[in-house]
C-alpha cells in the first residue's frame, strides 16, 4: 500500500515539497542578509546608548515591513496544501469513477482509505513542521530587536512553533472531508479554501485571545513582545473618548489624533515629557489587556491540541463516510 500511495500521490507530494522548498529558498535568501545586518546591530556597544537604539530602530524600519509581507503570503500555505493535496484525494476518485475499481479490490476500502490518509497526513505535517523551524530562525532577529509585534502576533504565531504543522494537518483534513462530501474536485477545493479561511480568521480574531485569561494592567509600560488585545483610556471608571483626552491636553496644546497618537502644538511646553504620563497624572487611566510573550508555548500547545483533535475527527469522519457511503 505504501507503493500505491506514493505512486498515486507523488505529484501532490512533489507539489507540497516544491511549495515549502520555494518558500524556504525565499526565507534563506532574504533571511541571511537580515541576520548579517542584525549581527552588526547587536554588536553595538554600549547597549542602550542613543546610537545603538537608533541602529536597532533603523534595522527594524528596514526589515520588519518585508517580514510582515512575507508572513502574510505564507499564510496561504496550509490552504494550498488542503486544496491541492487534500481535496482531490477522494473527489477525483468519485469524479472519474475509479473508486469503483479501488473499493472492489481485495484490500478493502476501509484499509485503503486509512492507509492513504495516515501516510499523507503524516507527510504533510512533517514537511510543515520542518518548515516552521526555518520560519522561527528567520524571524528571530526581528523578535530580538524588540519589534512591537511579538511572537504571539497572529501572522507569526500560526507559522511558528507547532501551529503551522497543526494548521497544515487541519487544512489537509478539511480538504479530504470536503472531497468525500462534495465528490467534485474543483468545488471541493474552493470549499476547502473557504472553510480554512473562515476557521483561521475566527481563530486569530476571536478564539486565540481567550486561550488563557488576558493580563489586565494600568501600567502604561507593557512588556516587550506582548500581544496587546485591548487598550483604552478611562476616567472615573468610564471609557474616555478623544474629547476627554483632548480636554485634558488643552492646557499644554497637545492634540490626540487617536488614543495612542499625540501631536504637540506650537504652545506645547518643551519640558512636557511623555504625554501618556501627563494624562495619567491628570486623572486618566490607561487600561491594557494583553497576552505576555512568555505564554507563547502554552498557546502553541493549546492551538496545536485542538487543531489536532479537529483533524482526527475530520479524518475519522472521512473514513466512516467511505466505509458506509454507497456508490
Amino acid at each position, binding site marked *: 500500500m505504501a507503493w500505491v500511495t506514493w505512486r498515486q500521490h507523488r505529484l501532490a507530494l512533489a507539489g507540497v515539497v516544491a511549495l515549502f522548498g520555494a518558500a524556504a529558498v525565499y526565507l534563506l535568501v532574504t533571511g541571511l542578509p537580515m541576520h548579517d545586518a542584525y549581527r552588526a546591530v547587536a554588536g553595538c556597544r554600549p547597549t542602550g546608548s542613543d546610537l545603538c537604539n537608533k541602529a536597532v530602530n533603523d534595522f527594524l524600519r528596514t526589515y520588519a515591513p518585508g517580514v510582515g509581507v512575507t508572513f502574510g503570503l505564507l499564510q496561504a500555505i496550509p490552504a494550498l496544501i488542503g486544496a491541492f493535496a487534500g481535496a482531490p484525494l477522494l473527489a477525483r476518485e468519485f469524479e472519474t*469513477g475509479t473508486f469503483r475499481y479501488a473499493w472492489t*479490490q481485495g484490500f478493502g476500502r476501509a484499509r485503503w482509505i486509512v492507509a492513504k490518509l495516515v501516510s499523507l497526513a503524516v507527510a504533510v505535517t512533517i514537511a510543515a513542521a520542518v518548515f516552521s523551524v526555518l520560519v522561527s530562525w528567520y524571524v528571530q532577529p526581528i523578535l530580538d530587536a524588540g519589534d512591537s509585534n511579538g511572537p504571539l502576533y497572529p501572522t507569526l504565531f500560526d507559522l511558528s512553533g507547532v501551529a503551522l504543522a497543526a494548521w497544515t494537518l487541519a487544512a489537509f483534513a478539511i480538504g479530504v472531508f470536503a472531497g468525500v462530501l462534495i465528490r467534485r474536485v474543483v468545488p471541493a477545493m474552493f470549499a476547502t479554501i473557504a472553510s480554512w479561511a473562515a476557521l483561521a480568521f475566527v481563530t486569530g480574531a476571536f478564539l486565540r485571545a481567550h486561550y488563557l485569561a488576558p493580563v489586565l494592567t494600568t501600567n502604561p509600560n507593557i512588556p516587550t513582545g506582548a500581544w496587546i488585545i485591548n487598550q483604552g483610556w478611562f476616567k472615573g471608571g468610564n471609557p474616555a473618548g478623544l474629547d476627554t483626552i483632548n480636554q485634558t491636553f488643552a492646557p499644554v496644546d497637545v492634540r490626540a489624533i487617536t488614543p495612542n497618537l499625540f501631536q504637540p502644538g506650537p504652545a506645547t511646553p518643551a519640558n512636557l515629557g511623555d504625554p501618556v504620563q501627563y494624562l495619567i497624572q491628570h486623572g486618566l487611566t490607561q487600561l491594557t489587556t494583553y497576552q505576555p510573550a512568555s505564554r507563547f508555548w502554552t498557546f502553541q500547545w493549546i492551538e496545536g491540541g485542538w487543531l489536532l483533535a479537529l483533524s482526527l475527527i475530520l479524518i475519522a469522519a472521512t473514513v466512516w463516510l467511505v466505509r458506509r457511503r*454507497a456508490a
Partner: protein
Amino acid sequence: MNAVETNGLGKRYGNAWALRECTLAIPAGHVAALVGPNGAGKSTLLNLVVGLAAPSAGIVTVLDGQPAGSAAALDGIAFVAQDAPLYRNLTPSEMLHLTRNLNRRFDEGYAKARLRDLGIPLERKAAKLSGGQQSQLALTLALARRPQLLVLDEPMAMLDPLARHDFMATVMAAIADDGLSVLLSSHVLTELERVADFLVLVSHGSVQVAGAVDDLIASHRVLTGPASEADAYAERQNVVHAQRGEAQAHMLVRIDARTGPVPPGWEAHPVSLEELTLAYLREPSAAWLPGPGALRLEPIEVSN
C-alpha cells in the same frame, strides 16, 4: 453453491426505489446475463452484489453465503465497472503493480502475457489507450486476480464490434480455464445470447425473469395462427405476450400443466432468447421466477 443470492433485496435513492423486492439465486458456474432497459436497476443490482452499495432492504450474499462487500467477498469477486474506470495517469504496467498490491492473489504472468497478446503497450498512460484497450486492460486486471466470480457492468457499451468479439473471447477463455462464474449486464441482448446460459431480466426496478436459458427455452414456445382466433386461445394457452398482425398472430406461451395442446390451424415454434426477452419486456406484469425453492408464477394478463 450459489454465486449470487438475494432475498427481498431493495435499494432506495432518496424516495425512489432503484430496485425492490429482488429475490434471486444464480448458481455458480454459469455465465449469467443481466438484461433490461436502461435505468431498470441493473447497475444498482451489480453495485449491491460487489458491495459498492449497501442494501436499503433485504440481503445479498455471494460465493455461497458471504455477505456482499465483506473481506471474503471482495477477495473472491472481480468487478469491471461501466466504462472501465482506470487511473488515467497510470500506465498498464503501473496498474498491474497497483492491482497486485491491493490483492492477496494476482497472476502477474498471466496479465502481462494477455496484454502482450492484445498488443497493449505496457508503458503508455491509460488515458492514451483506445476504448477497446482500456476495457481489455480493466478485464485483464480483473481476471488476473483469479476471481471465483467476475462481475461486468455493461462491459461492451463503448466497444466496436471487433473489440466486443475480442473482449468476449477473453472472458470465454477464462471461463474455460478457471471455471469461474460470470455475471454481466447489458441492454443489448444479442451480444450476450451466444455466451449466457443464465438469464436475469430486470425492468422497472424488479426482477421479471430469472432462470437457466435452457429451462427458459424449453418451457416457452411461439404459436402462430389466425389473428381472429387469438383472443379465444389466449386464456387457455397461458400466453405471456401476443402480437397481432393483419392476418396472423404470434403468441409467446408458457408450457406448464395449464397449457393446452396446440390448437388446430396453429403452428408451434421454439422460441429464441431474444424473442422471449422482448416478449417479457413488453409485458411488465408477466414474470418467470424460479425462487430458491419453488417455481413461482405470477398472474398474467393478455394485452391487445
